């Protein structure tokens, strides 16, 4: 029995939720919040989304989508093209290959894993950007950004989990 058209549209819409949520996070991360110093250390919210969905629904956020999200972030943030897409693909690869370590395990374990990924990632980005601009970029804001990203993880993961159990149970 082939599913009806409305059912298929419904499935597609539900299946694209991770993409739309990630895109929204990309936009949120460049909106000026006007908190002192915050624009320099705005958490890399996209990395949380990519990490979470690559663990729980890797087929809904395939590499090409991760790449596109990274390019969008680079475009509107003014960062060099390819920087965020490269780092997000790395997050995807790590998360998708370590699914059995994290899925179905206590939340703290996932948070711990994300912490390692986030710290490694900001260090890698820092090295790439230092080479890219041929200058020593201050590392402190990079580390603060990484810390903030880690702190934001539980909140977003909680929202994602709600969405996942509410709207995407059978996808």
């Amino acid at each position, binding site marked *: 029995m082939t599913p009806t058209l409305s059912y298929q549209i419904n499935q597609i819409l539900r299946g694209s939720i991770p993409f739309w949520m990630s895109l929204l996070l990309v*936009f*949120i*991360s*460049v*909106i*000026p*919040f*006007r*908190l*002192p*110093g*915050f*624009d*320099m*250390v*705005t958490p*890399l919210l996209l990395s949380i989304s990519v990490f979470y969905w690559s663990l729980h629904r890797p087929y809904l956020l395939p*590499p*090409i989508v*991760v*790449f596109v999200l*990274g*390019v*969008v972030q680079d*475009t*509107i*943030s*003014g*960062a*060099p*093209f*390819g*920087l965020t*897409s*490269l780092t997000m*693909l*790395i997050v995807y*690869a790590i998360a998708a290959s370590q699914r059995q370590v994290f899925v179905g395990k206590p939340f703290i374990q996932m948070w711990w894993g994300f912490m390692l990924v986030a710290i490694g990632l900001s260090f890698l*980005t820092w090295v*790439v*950007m230092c080479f*890219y*601009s041929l*200058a020593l*970029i*201050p590392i402190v*804001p*990079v580390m*603060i*950004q990484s810390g903030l990203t880690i702190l934001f993880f539980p909140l977003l993961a909680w929202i994602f989990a709600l969405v996942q159990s509410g709207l995407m149970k059978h996808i």
Partner: protein
Amino acid sequence: MALNQGTAWRLAIPLKVFFQRFAFLSLICLSIALLVLGKADLVLLERARTISTDALSPVLGTLSQPVNAFNKGIERVQELASLVEENERLRLENERLIKWQAASRALTKENEYYRQMLNALSDPLVLPITARVIGDSGGPFVRTLLLSAGRLDGVRNGQAAVGPNGVIGRVVQVGHQSARILLLTDLNSRIPVILENSRHKGILVGDNTNIPKLGYLPNNAKVAPGDRVVTSGDGGMLPAGWPIGVVSAVNDGQISVQAYADWTRLEYVSVLRYDLPGLTDKETNPGDLSESRLGN
């Protein structure tokens, strides 16, 4: 039949895995290629960035609206708490400013008279275009702002951007309805400046921190903390004499400048249309004199 399907699957799965791996690796390579090409300043890439930023700017404008409203609300509450002191402070400031106004009027007249005597050419007028900030760089690697005004509003590449307190940077990318400002704190920012009192010229070099450094001063230049730094107008793109900041520290030949701009409160930014007759053409800088006389 079942057996056939099984063998087909056994063949298909490794193939699928292979293609997935291949796609993944090629995307990684593509990202690295984009980084390298971006470093080479490819016009095509910048064009793509301009067009897509332009297309996305209405979304950012809409999304930043509630954040603005929220911030305004908080500010209003904070202001309510200090209403009396604020009023007193403003009254005193107003008294002081009225005195300054008289002095400034006299000086302007005097200056005009001297200019007339010397037959000196007057600086072209400057026409500001004010636009809302709809995006920042959202990270520690670049310091830029996204504005909600573009080519259609008269914004052009290279024009100076000023906040309420002083110069904040330069326009580096212009779309139809959006423009990107490179803040003077960015690693790639170089702005020709002059020390207001000693008239020594230098370049303000950004380094991604909040305190840009003053470089390329003449060897005999004497600098002390507290010296005012203004734009020198060298190069013809930025108007001369606009305030940037004060020298905040001098140690080991490294001169730090504290900008007047309040980086956290940049809500509206003005882009300066400025035209040196004969030096800039209409296409690159359309702020011609007849238009400039309308405002400012």
